[in-house]
């Protein structure tokens, strides 16, 4: 089992090596030397740099990503047949997460381990899993192949989930997110019949609340089951009423907030015991410049340690800037701490906080907290005035007025966050900084809060700075995007400019790392090596140079020596990079659509499904995966989630908000790795391409490739990751980076022969 928090899973007082060695020592009774050897092997297998040193270090000396790799190694050392991963990457940054996901997938294949992957992130599931079981309130509500569940879902809850997350292509003005109404029932308050009934728009009295709903098979889909009685009657493409609000896009007004060359340095004493001495400077923000206009949403994107929170603190006056300018509606505020700001300025820039459980003071009632804010902002003259205004604010955030008397602990996360929003807008703020306001909420609630924020912003013409690491949300709601890395703005521009090439190399990696829950999306896979450097000890030159894959395309090693200039790409699109225009131009989009999303999905077989629904079934039983036909590849994905039969932990997890689980396929290491992964063969053409032009392919390899039916550049260029891996295995030739490179070279060669190759790579092919 692999848990969310890698740090907590490792014993802080024991060295990594010892902890790993324990496993073979117990399970196989081997000698210490043998155990050490096996542990070392496994550390290498999870692709950790310098395994010998890793084995001798303590857990706290490793970064989060490395710790998670160690935990995975520990789990694999006992050669399990089934691996349970409970949100293994939620605590990690997106680019690190991509690396772990890649690793887990690879290891699953290599060792033939089945995996159960518990996650709330639909995109991640699409990337890792073969089959998925959607759980709601202690029950599995839908289970099936990922493609079936994602594209042809047959349960209203699953559909609700998909409608409440922003997918690429969704636009805030045309198709807003649709939240699932209501709240998850507490385990002891579950309704009779369908648990999802009270929140379901297709709910039919007398049918859905009549009795226990069994898992019903769906005709025509392979092993696809749904716990819904009406799935064959529902029109799965119809949107609920009012979902298609065609809102007018807002024209951004005059500049409201201008930030010019903002710098924020912290001085940290290197030796805290004796004080003084040499101090280290942490450059939290470096040369930040951007502008936000009235009723515009500017997203600030970046991973942990990139300085986005520091930026927010400076804006709000919790910190003062070291250098540079912050101008809020023509008033410079960069060096005025919040205590010295006048009420108008304080009320003019407010914040919505990340953690809903922390945002309200648990000791004061909701109403009194809002009234206090109003008092502080000089809104209203008397207490009665303020109470009235407070009730209006509750209306604004769509909460019942009775909530004024409640204590925060009586509210759910989403409701608390609404109060947080009400508080931020209490003094008619001109600028609202939203620091990941929804990331800690359940998926179905996220949509509601996001929509609320945007509605109020639209109404009040507020400028919103939306801080996030989630690019899919950003794409959905932002007008302009600022990408930050280690205190620098590496790229900024309108949303369209950021999400289309040319990219900054970091943005490119970030985009590719975001899991997207849409089967029609094709992504380029770029996995960054290593972790984010510490802000205490940033790399020289370009902040991103340690992980950049384009570094070798900048001549003279400039990346390591100098911070690149902010390159103007036109129309307010800036990128902090040394790369030439040529290279930038040759970038391909990271996210592309395979085919236009199918609008109509017929497959409605009424009569047959009716018969199926009458088939009696044991209460709450998930129909076991039909064994027999494909015993080798089928995995035991049956997640028993019948209330009572499952472990408390599990029930808890679902009560926490509809989790999804899926398993990857069981695959013995020796089995043929799926025919689909094998590169397409062809007959030998009359004029086969000279594969030797690809650096890395010699005459010997050319012959072997020819044996496999590979003759042209076009074939190699079409290789996807699966094929590359297959070739990797087949040629018994290690290191997949090179094969990556082959494909790139082959693409160039296929497109324009030697000339194109020279243009892209700047050198002649061999």
């Amino acid at each position, binding site marked *: 089992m692999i848990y969310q928090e890698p740090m*907590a*899973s490792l014993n*802080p007082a024991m060295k990594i090596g010892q902890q790993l060695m324990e*496993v073979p020592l*117990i399970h196989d009774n081997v000698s210490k030397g043998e155990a050490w050897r096996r542990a070392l092997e496994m550390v290498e297998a999870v692709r950790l740099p310098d395994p010998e040193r890793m084995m001798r270090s*303590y857990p*706290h000396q490793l970064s989060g990503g490395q710790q998670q790799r160690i935990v995975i190694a520990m789990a694999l050392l006992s050669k399990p047949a089934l691996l349970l991963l409970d949100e293994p990457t939620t605590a990690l940054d997106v680019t690190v997460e991509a690396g772990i996901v890649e690793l887990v997938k690879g290891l699953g294949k290599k060792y033939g381990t089945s995996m159960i992957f518990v996650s709330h992130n639909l995109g991640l599931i699409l990337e890792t899993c073969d089959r998925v079981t959607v759980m709601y309130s202690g029950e599995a509500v839908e289970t099936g192949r990922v493609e079936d569940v994602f594209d042809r879902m047959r349960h209203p809850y699953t559909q609700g989930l998909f409608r409440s997350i922003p997918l690429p292509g969704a636009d805030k003005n045309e198709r807003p997110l649709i939240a699932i109404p209501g709240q998850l029932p507490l385990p002891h308050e579950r309704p009779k019949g369908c648990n999802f009934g009270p929140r379901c728009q297709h709910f039919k009295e007398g049918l859905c609340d009549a009795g226990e709903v069994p898992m019903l098979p769906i005709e025509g889909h392979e092993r696809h089951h749904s716990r819904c009685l009406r799935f064959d009657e529902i029109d799965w493409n119809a949107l609920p009423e009012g979902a298609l609000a065609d809102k007018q896009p807002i024209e951004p007004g005059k500049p409201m907030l201008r930030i010019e060359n903002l710098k924020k340095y912290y001085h940290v004493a290197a030796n805290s015991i004796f004080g003084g001495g040499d101090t280290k400077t942490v450059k939290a923000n470096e040369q930040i410049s951007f502008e936000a206009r009235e009723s515009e949403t500017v997203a600030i994107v970046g991973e942990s340690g990139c300085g986005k929170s520091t930026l927010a603190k400076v804006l709000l006056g919790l910190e003062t800037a070291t250098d540079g300018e912050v101008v809020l509606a023509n008033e410079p505020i960069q060096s005025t701490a919040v205590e010295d700001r006048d009420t108008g300025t304080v009320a003019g820039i407010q914040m919505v906080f990340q953690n809903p459980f922390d945002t309200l003071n648990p000791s004061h009632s909701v109403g009194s907290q809002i009234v206090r804010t109003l008092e502080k902002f000089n809104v209203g003259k008397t207490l009665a005035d303020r109470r009235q205004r407070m009730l209006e604010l509750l209306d604004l955030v769509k909460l019942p007025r009775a909530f004024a008397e409640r204590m925060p602990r009586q509210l759910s996360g989403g409701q608390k966050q609404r109060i947080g929003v009400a508080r931020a807008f209490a003094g008619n703020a001109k600028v609202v900084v939203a620091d990941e306001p929804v990331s800690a909420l359940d998926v179905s609630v996220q949509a509601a809060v996001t929509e609320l924020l945007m509605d109020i912003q639209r109404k009040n013409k507020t400028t919103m700075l939306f801080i996030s690491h989630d690019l899919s949300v950003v794409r959905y709601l932002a007008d302009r995007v600022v990408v930050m890395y280690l205190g620098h703005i590496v790229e900024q521009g309108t949303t369209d400019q950021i999400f289309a090439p040319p990219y900054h190399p970091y943005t490119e990696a970030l985009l590719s790392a975001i899991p997207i829950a849409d089967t029609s999306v094709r992504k380029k896979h770029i996995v960054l090596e290593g972790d984010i450097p510490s802000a205490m000890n940033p790399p020289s030159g370009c902040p991103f140079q340690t992980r950049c894959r384009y570094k070798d395309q900048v001549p003279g090693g400039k990346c390591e020596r100098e911070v690149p200039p902010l390159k103007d790409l036109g129309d307010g699109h800036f990128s902090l990079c040394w790369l030439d225009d040529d290279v930038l131009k040759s970038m391909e989009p990271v996210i592309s659509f395979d085919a236009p999303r199918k609008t109509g999905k017929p497959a409605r077989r009424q009569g047959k499904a009716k018969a199926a629904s009458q088939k009696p079934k044991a209460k709450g039983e998930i129909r076991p995966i039909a064994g027999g036909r494909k015993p080798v590849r089928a995995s035991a994905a049956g997640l028993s989630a019948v209330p009572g039969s499952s472990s408390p932990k599990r029930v808890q997890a679902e009560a926490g908000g509809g989790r999804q689980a899926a398993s990857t396929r069981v695959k013995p290491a020796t089995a043929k790795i799926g025919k689909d992964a094998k590169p397409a063969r062809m007959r030998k053409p009359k004029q086969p391409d000279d594969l030797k032009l690809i650096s890395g392919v010699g005459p010997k390899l050319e012959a072997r490739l020819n044996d496999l039916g590979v003759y042209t550049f076009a074939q190699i260029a079409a290789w996807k990751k699966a094929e590359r891996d297959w070739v990797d295995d087949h040629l018994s030739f290690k290191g997949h980076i090179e094969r990556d490179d082959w494909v790139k070279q082959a693409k160039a060669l296929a497109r324009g022969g030697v000339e194109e190759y020279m243009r892209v790579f700047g050198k002649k092919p061999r």
Partner: protein
Amino acid sequence: MASPRFSYCDEPAEPYYGGILQGDFGCSTKFKVPVAEKLFPALGATGILMFWVMVVMVPVALLIGVLAGMREGTRTDRTLSVASIATTATPEYVSGVIFAVIFASWLGWLNGSAATATRQGISFYNFTLPVMTMAIYGIGYIARMTRASMVEVMTQQYIRTARLKGLGFRAVVIKHALRNALIAPFTVIMLQFPWLLTGVVIVEVMFRYQGFGFTLVEAASNNDIDLLLGCSLVSVFVVLSTQLISDVGYAYLNPRIRVQ
């Protein structure tokens, strides 16, 4: 030429406290000897007492704490917890009286006075009561700390990880939990010293053991300024050095601190 202040010791007429820096503590008016001559043997006697107290107190307390914290909420845990709360509610002058009544007055097994220990050397008969009295108060406190720390450690995920590796419960407790659980009580034990010093004073007075605490009380009640000053200096010195030891030991036990 002024005559010496006291006939029994060689000292300038004017009180000169700077001598302390050179190891000269002045003279005791009560015992009519130089302070150093009285103070250091007394310290030695107290050292012996403390040694035995530690030998009894620490293992017993840790054992109780670990046993109680190992499986939270069981009958053993609740019994041991209430027992340790009861001992923390029993200061030395209370438990001293109770033990003296039971073991010395009623049963007659042990000697209610440790005065003989100074002259004739310590024995089970004359030394058990003081040691037991002092240990009992500390046991409750340390055991509770150990239990809390143990309970916390046992709910950590790495304990779950260790269980999932297939380690037995005993092995998990001994190899994974103990070391992490002992970090917090260690500091507590060391920080107990200022309090133990109070205990020493009470116990030594109660059982008439001629140690440091006994000397201190004698000095204070007879206005023996030099001796009192010497005692204060020594005790502050002892306390500060144990705090230093506790910091160093903490760093040794906790690898996370060591690196920084």
